[in-house]
C-alpha cells in the first residue's frame, strides 16, 4: 500500500506543507535582516534581537506570560487529569454528562465567546465579593478552563489504554486504591502528563483573545503587546520577537511529541515482552 501514492497526491501534500511553512520561514529569515525596511535585504544582523533585550515593555510582557504559562499548565494538568480519571474510571456518577460536555465544549467554543462570558463572570464576582481583580489571577483562571480540556482529552485516551492488571495486583497485595494508582498507573501515564503540560504551556503562551477580555489595566501578556504592535504593520523587531516565540513553542511541541512517541514505543515493547 505504500507505493501507490499518485503524483497528484504528492503534489498537493507538498503544496499544503509549503503553504504552512513558507510564511514562518520567511518571517524567521527577515528577522535577521540588517535593513530596517522590512522588504529590502540589507545583510545579516542580529540587531533586532539585541534591541528586544532593551525593550522593557516586551520583557515585562514576556515575564508575565511565562509566569502565567507555568501556573496555568500546572493547574491544568492537575484538574485535567482528575477529570480524565473521573471519566475513565468512574463509569456512573451524577454529573458525568455535565463533565463530559464541559471538557469537550472549550475545544470547539469560539474564543471570543468564552472570553466575553468569563469577563462578565469576573466583573460580577468582583462586584459581589470584591475578588478577583482583573489581571494575573483572572487570566490564569480563564486559561486553566480551556487548557485543562486539552489535558483531559490527551490523558483520557492514554488512561483508557493503560493496563489495569498491575494496579489490581497491587491492590490484591494490600495497597489502597490511591497508593496502587500512584505506584502503577501514574508512571504509565506520566509521559502523557508531561506532554500535556507542555501543550498547555504553549496554548497559554499563545492566547490573545481570551487574555484580552479577562485582563485588566497593567497586565499585558506577550500576545497582547505583539497584537498592538502588529496592528501598526510589519516591523523588524516584531519579526525577531515572533521568531523567538515560534521557536520556543516549536521546541515544546517537538519535546511533547518525543515524550509521547517514546512512551508508545515502550508500551509496544512491553506488550511484546509480555507475550513471550
Amino acid at each position, binding site marked *: 500500500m505504500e507505493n501507490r501514492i499518485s503524483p497528484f497526491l504528492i503534489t498537493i501534500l507538498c503544496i499544503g506543507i509549503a*503553504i504552512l511553512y513558507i*510564511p514562518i520561514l520567511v518571517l524567521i529569515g527577515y528577522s535577521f535582516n540588517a535593513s530596517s525596511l522590512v522588504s529590502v535585504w540589507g545583510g545579516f544582523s542580529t540587531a533586532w534581537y539585541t534591541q528586544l533585550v532593551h525593550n522593557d515593555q516586551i520583557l515585562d510582557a514576556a515575564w508575565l506570560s511565562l509566569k502565567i504559562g507555568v501556573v496555568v499548565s500546572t493547574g491544568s494538568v492537575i484538574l485535567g487529569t482528575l477529570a480524565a480519571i473521573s471519566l475513565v474510571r468512574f463509569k456512573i456518577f451524577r454529573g458525568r454528562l*455535565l463533565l463530559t460536555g464541559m471538557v469537550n465544549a*472549550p475545544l470547539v467554543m*469560539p474564543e471570543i465567546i468564552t472570553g*466575553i462570558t468569563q469577563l462578565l463572570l469576573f466583573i460580577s464576582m468582583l462586584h459581589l465579593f470584591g475578588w478577583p481583580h482583573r489581571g494575573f489571577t483572572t487570566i490564569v483562571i480563564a486559561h486553566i478552563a480551556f487548557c485543562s480540556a486539552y489535558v483531559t482529552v490527551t490523558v483520557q485516551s492514554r488512561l483508557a489504554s493503560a493496563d489495569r492488571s498491575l494496579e489490581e495486583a497491587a491492590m490484591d497485595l494490600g495497597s489502597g*486504591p490511591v497508593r496502587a494508582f500512584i505506584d502503577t498507573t501514574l508512571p504509565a501515564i506520566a509521559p502523557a502528563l508531561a506532554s500535556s503540560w507542555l501543550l498547555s504551556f504553549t496554548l497559554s503562551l499563545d492566547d490573545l483573545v481570551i487574555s484580552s477580555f479577562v485582563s485588566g489595566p497593567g497586565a499585558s501578556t506577550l500576545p497582547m503587546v505583539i497584537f498592538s504592535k502588529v496592528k501598526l504593520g510589519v516591523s523588524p523587531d516584531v519579526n525577531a520577537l515572533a521568531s523567538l516565540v515560534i521557536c520556543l513553542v516549536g521546541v515544546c511541541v517537538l519535546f511533547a511529541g518525543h515524550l509521547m512517541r517514546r512512551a508508545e514505543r515502550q508500551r509496544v515493547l512491553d506488550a511484546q515482552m509480555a507475550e513471550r
Partner: protein
Amino acid sequence: MTSAIRDDALARTLPRAALEEWLRRKGKWLIILPPLLFLLVFFLIPFGFALSISFADTALRVPPFTDILSVSPDWHIHLTLNLGNFKYLFTDEVYGLSYLYSLKTAFFSTLICLALGYPMAYAIARTSKSTQSVLLLIIILPFWTSFLLRVYALEGIIRETGLLNTALLWLGMIDHPLQIMRTTLAVYLGIIYSYLPFMVLPLFATLEKLDHSLLEAAADLGSPPWRTFIDVTLPLSMPGVIAGSMLVFIPAIGEFVIPTLLGGPDNLMIGRVLWDEFFGNRDWPVASAVAIAFLVLLVGPIALYQHYNTKQLES
C-alpha cells in the same frame, strides 16, 4: 474489664474505620468534584451571566449595566427583563449582515480547506508508518503555533511589498503589485492558512483506519479508482470529513484576529463586531445579546461535531 479495654480500642479505631468506610464510598467525589466545580463556575456559569446581562439595560456605573433582579424595600423580588437588546439585533442590520458574512466566509473557507486537506490526509495515510509520524509532526507543529504570529507571518508574504508580489514582479508575471491585504481574498487566505491543520488531522485519523481489503475488493470487482473512491473511501471517511469541517467552520465564524489584521473595513465578521461592541462602544448588554444569539446559532454545528467525535472515539 477485658470488655472495657476492647470497647476502648474499638472506640479509638472507630473514627478511622468510619473515615475509611466514608472514603471507600464517597472518595471518588474528591477526584470528580474539583474539575467539575471549577469548570462549572468558570466555564458554564459565565454563560448564565452573559444570558442575564443580555436582558439588562446599559447604565452609567460599574459594572455598566443594570441588575435584572432587584429587591424592593418590602422584600418583593422584581425581575426586569429587557428584550430591547435582542430587538436591537434585528433593527440594526449590521448584526445580521455580519453574521451572514461570517457564515459565508466560514463556509467557503471550510470547503477550500477540505479540498486541500483531504488529498493531504489521504497521501499521509498512504505512506509508511515511519514517514507518517514525521509528516504528522510537520502538520501538528503549526497547529500549536500562535495564530497571531502565523497571521502576522502571512502578512509578510501577501502585503504590497511582500514576498509574493516581489516574486511575481521579478518573474514579469505582473506589472504592478497586487493588492491582497485588506481584501476579502486576504481573509480567506488567512483562515485557510491558519485552520488547514485542523482539517488534516481528523481526516487522517479516519483515513488511516480505512480497511484496505475493501478497496482491493472493489478493484477486483472491476471498479475504476474514482468509482471506488466515491463508493467506498468517501462514505467511510465521512466522520473525519464532518469532524474536520466543524473544527474549521466553528472557530472560523467567530474569528477575530484574521479579519482585523488582514481584512479591510468591509470584512465585518461577527467576532470583530463583538470586540468593537465591548471595547469600543462599551455596550455590554447588546454585546452579550450578540454573543448569546451567536451561540444559539452555533449549537447545531457543535452538536454535530460532538456526535461524530464521540462516535469516532467509541469505535
